[in-house]
């Protein structure tokens, strides 16, 4: 070989050797990665099986192996974190989840797990932040369903902490995002109902009924919401329809009975004939006075003047007794209200002293409270 080009020739000769070595290394690396991927799958399968058998410790070890061989596969890491959580190794789980979140901040399942851990620690601020990241994050499977579930979990978390207004705000936001599905609308309506937001509950049920007019849970919920709003006529209508679809719903049947009773005793119904109105007032007055007397008797409490609130109301009722039976009472709305106000006060005081009313007394209380309560 000529000396001039000796070095250059050797250098040039390096390139085919390098190319060959590249091929060999490439083949070795492919085989290596395939082996690692195979090991990862194998250990993942074993880990899942161990989890299914309830052997959490074994599952953690296997899932950890899967995670090591997969070089940080997010699905394996998430399952490992979940297994650690189920073994109450929450700090370890958190480090895996945080690492996952660092790599993929919008990962819905990871954020949800972090939210749960934060909720468990009692760190409400962080929990809410992670819940929101989960709700607005990316989900690999059934994203809408998973987001709704996360939203509902956030709602329950806030309710459990007594943050009712924040919880309802989340529920309202969820309600806006709901698809046209009567079941989902009804579920959200139920939550509003539980949270005593009857107006929104009724609105939600009505939305469900617009989608499916004979959706029994929605009818029952709407009846309950309307009842709690004091709209006994609408409640009666919904509950009757609900019972037509589900005859054995004893709870709805009781509610319907009560609603009908309220409608039957309510003297403020504008469509009532005057005689009927007076009759209802008298009946309510007599019923509540009798309950008051019975309560005082049961408590061995004297109804002589100056002997407590029951005695005071009793004295007032005695004073009003004649007026109640006045034939022109129905034509004097102010007096009518005054009588019913006294009825309401007597029922309230009796309830305080002797427990909640039932039957006709409950109906009278509801009817009176609807019109007179502050």
């Amino acid at each position: 070989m000529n000396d001039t080009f000796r070095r250059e020739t050797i250098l040039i000769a390096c390139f085919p050797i390098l190319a060959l070595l590249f091929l060999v290394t490439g083949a070795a690396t492919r085989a290596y990665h395939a082996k690692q991927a195979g090991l990862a799958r194998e250990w993942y399968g074993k880990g899942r099986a161990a989890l299914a058998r309830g052997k959490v410790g074994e599952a953690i070890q296997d899932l950890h192996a899967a995670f090591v061989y997969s070089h940080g596969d997010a699905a394996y890491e998430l399952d490992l974190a979940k297994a650690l959580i189920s073994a109450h190794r929450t700090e370890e789980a958190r480090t895996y989840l945080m690492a996952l979140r660092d790599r993929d901040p919008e990962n819905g399942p990871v954020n949800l797990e972090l939210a749960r851990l934060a909720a468990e620690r009692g760190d409400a601020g962080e929990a809410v932040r992670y819940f929101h990241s989960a709700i607005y994050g990316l989900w690999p499977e059934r994203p809408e369903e998973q987001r709704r579930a996360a939203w509902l979990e956030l709602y329950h978390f806030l309710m459990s902490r007594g943050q009712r207004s924040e919880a309802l705000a989340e529920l309202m936001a969820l309600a806006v995002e709901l698809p046209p599905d009567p079941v989902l609308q009804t579920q959200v309506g139920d939550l509003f109902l539980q949270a005593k937001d009857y107006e929104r509950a009724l609105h939600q049920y009505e939305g469900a009924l617009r989608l499916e007019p004979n959706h029994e849970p929605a009818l029952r919920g709407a009846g309950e919401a309307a009842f709690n709003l004091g709209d006994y006529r609408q409640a009666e209508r919904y509950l009757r329809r609900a019972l037509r679809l589900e005859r054995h719903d004893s709870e709805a049947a009781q509610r319907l009975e009560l609603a009908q009773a309220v409608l039957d005793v309510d003297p403020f119904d504008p469509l009532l004939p005057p005689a009927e109105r007076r009759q209802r007032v008298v009946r309510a007055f007599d019923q509540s006075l009798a309950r008051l007397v019975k309560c005082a008797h049961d408590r061995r409490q004297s109804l002589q003047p100056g002997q407590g609130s029951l005695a005071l109301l009793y004295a007032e009722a005695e004073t009003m007794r004649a007026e109640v039976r006045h034939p022109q009472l129905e034509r004097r709305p102010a007096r009518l209200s005054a009588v019913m106000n006294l009825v309401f006060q007597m029922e309230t005081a009796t309830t305080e002293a002797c427990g909640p009313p039932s039957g006709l007394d409950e109906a009278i209380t509801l009817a009176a409270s609807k019109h007179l309560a502050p």
Partner: protein
Amino acid sequence: MAAPQIHRETHRVPQAIPGVEPSRRTGRWVAAASRLLTLGEGNLFLLLAVIIGLFSGLAVVLFRIAIDWTHWWFLGSSLAPFRTRLVLAPVVGGLAVAALVMRVFPRVRGSGVNQTKAAVYIYDGYIPFNTVFGKFIACALAIGSGQSLGPEDPSLQIGAGIASALGRRLRLSRERVRLIAPVGAAAGLSAAFNAPISAILFVIEEVIGRWSAGVLGAIVLSAVSSVVIVRGFLGAEPLFRIPPFRLVHAAELLAYAVLGIVGGFASLVFVRLVGPLRPRLKALPRWSQYFQPAAAGLLIGVIGLWLPQVMGAGYESIDEAMHGHYSWRMLAVLGAFKILATSLSFSSGAPGGMFAPTLFIGAMVGGAVGGIEHLLFPSLTAPVGAYALVGMGTLFAGFLRAPMTSVFMVLEVSGNYSIILPVLISNTLAYLISRRYQAVPLFDLLARQDGVDLPSMEEQREEPALRVEDAMRKAPALVLRGEETVASALAKGAGLASGRFLVSLPNGEWSYVTKQDLERQAASSAGGNLTPLSRLVSETRLPYFHPDQPLDVALRRLGDCPEAPVVHRADFRKLQGVISLVDILRAYGVSPSALTTQERWS
């Protein structure tokens, strides 16, 4: 070891091809092509650095795959291998490794760093190529079977061996061949660590010992190209996942200072265990060396029954420590047993490196210290992971005594600049403690145990250098200026005994003039008195020095000059002293009379 024959002449581009008589036109074409295609030594060196980086990167990729495959073969793929495997694998691996080391590859025993240094300083850059194969096979067997060693040091030597072989094949100059081994070492280490900056710094700090522009470019190129290869084939993920770092409170720096102190003493324990154990085991009969790695393997296997994390390089466990998967007690136990296991493995002669075990111990010690501090002051300290990360650098500084590399390594792997203060504090304390109680650094200790006195980079760094100001004498009473006339100079020097005067010239240069020259010029003609000195002085220009320059520079540049001026750096005409050969020798402790005796003797 017989060093190979090395071409001493640097490569030059020939203008014509010897032995060929081409026509004139063909000759011109060949010369032009030759100029175009041939590379100067400097450019060739840089291109070679890239090629070395590529080769080293590919070799390290295969090496890492080989280690993992050996591990699966010996210990299986489970993270909690069967008990029999845990005990038997390192024993069987140890027997195989010992046979290879004793029979086939005797040079693979020992530290790759020291062997690379020996190549640079003793064997003119020569590392036998079969050492590359030997390190590859024996280390893959040892580490894969569970010996408590790491792949970085062997990777460094694999890179250095490849570089040395290429350098020799290309018949580079002796100087270049010497420097090519560190270039390969940087490539190998960079590929193993997946951290080029740390590898470059380590090679400069620990192998070469000085910054040199000539070799720095080549080292950078080789380190970067090897990392590119490794990342291309094995992915860009670091060896372990790095936890987020944040300094919780300024007072937390005290906690890192405590880590530095604990890390410093842990380093001492480690050195004090490896230091005496290795020569003792080496001194045992030769036949026993066939069984020493197996015996060490057996002990490590027994430890592995309870603590399998101490086996092998242990990157997964470092990862887990940094993510808070262990309690502080477990971290402390793992750190302590890793020190024991690594000391056994390394001292038994099993080939492999100390880098990964050092990082492991550092992470465990750091995590344990952090865990305790976090228990005591939860609101003032960061989670355990941050301390494990800083702890790795701390042990690196204390045990391997590479302070700069230790700082940059943590910075590089964490990618977080805010970690710098804790790392600086912790590493410095560990380094100072280690230096205070262990005079000889580990690599120097190992070299001396092997009967080689390699230059100690730490000693070199810290050896007080003599400077010109240590040898110079006071400036003479009379210094003439070039603008002065002969008459003025004669008047000034009239009462002086000295026959020679320094002359400061207007352009900042210095020369001299003798009294006889002045008198001769004054007597030569009527106007001779008025001649400016700058026209009269000798054509010789004196070398001049600055007070802070190293004395050996002055010695080399003084030449035949009897006396040279020492001038101010900002004003070259301002004389601060003079220096002569006698002054320099006196500063070096040689008396002029001794010099005379030597001259006579020679």
